């Protein structure tokens, strides 16, 4: 099995924010924290494109590299998760992340920054799978329920794809080949860089629309 990956098809995303809402509802994410959000390029201009962005579970994650307390860990499926019992809420990861994935709840009178919160690919944390303790800190653990992330599974236009990197890349590649375009704005190469030998299948850059 390849690494778990997200990819968003910019030709299909209609900026409905359903993924954002589903994520917040599924994980009971606190006010002010958005594990996922929709970014629109050239908003209001004809031909605008939107993509849904969250933690991309980078293969060489900069958040892991800069964390002073090593609270991040990588699972067998290639997911970058973190241990909230170790996190000190310093915020280094939020400066390092190119996707703005790490979020910090503010609480207390002086807006004290809490422990970091981010997309878990619906894989929870280090606690027992599906336990109350895990839900309180990280939200639902859908992977251990035999499901994929809620944002991707409920996406109405199937713009956001999530799952085994090989499967997801195949689905996107097929779409791009059938319609003859669609990976210029946000293709596999844009999201994850050019593939290394034996890595996830690349999406051939199509012609400009």
């Amino acid at each position, binding site marked *: 099995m390849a690494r778990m990956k997200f990819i968003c098809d910019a030709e299909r995303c209609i900026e409905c924010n359903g993924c954002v809402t589903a994520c917040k509802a599924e994980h009971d994410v606190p006010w002010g924290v958005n594990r996922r959000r929709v970014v629109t390029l050239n908003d209001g201009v004809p031909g605008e494109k939107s993509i849904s962005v969250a933690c991309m579970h980078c293969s060489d994650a900069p958040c892991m590299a800069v964390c002073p*307390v090593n609270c991040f*860990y990588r699972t067998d499926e290639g997911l970058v998760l973190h241990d909230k019992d170790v996190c000190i809420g310093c915020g280094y990861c939020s400066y390092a992340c190119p996707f703005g994935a790490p979020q910090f709840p503010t609480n207390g009178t002086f807006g004290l920054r809490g422990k970091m919160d981010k997309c878990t690919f619906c894989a929870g944390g280090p606690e027992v799978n*599906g336990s109350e303790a895990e839900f309180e800190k990280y939200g639902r*653990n859908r992977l251990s*329920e035999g*499901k994929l992330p809620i944002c991707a599974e409920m996406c109405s236009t199937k713009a956001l794809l999530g799952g*085994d990197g090989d499967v997801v890349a195949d689905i996107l590649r097929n779409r791009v080949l059938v319609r003859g375009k669609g990976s210029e704005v946000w293709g596999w190469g844009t999201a994850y860089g050019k593939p290394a030998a034996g890595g996830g299948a690349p999406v051939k850059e199509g012609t400009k629309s």
Partner: protein
Amino acid sequence: MKSLLLLACALSLAACGGPSGKADQIVSKKATRPSWDAAANPFVVSGWTSGDKASWQEQMTKRAQNQNEYLRTN
């Protein structure tokens, strides 16, 4: 006197050999649970076996194909 000085130096250097206390040595002590260990709740879908990595992977692949409407509509 000289030997005392040497002993003091040795003891001082010995202090440098202790645990560095570097932040990168602080790691999560919890062992991570693999995703193929089914969640302890009633929301686990059927079609795979808890603890069986291969069956979980098959379930994930099958589930991911639900996102491929070229399979569903064509």
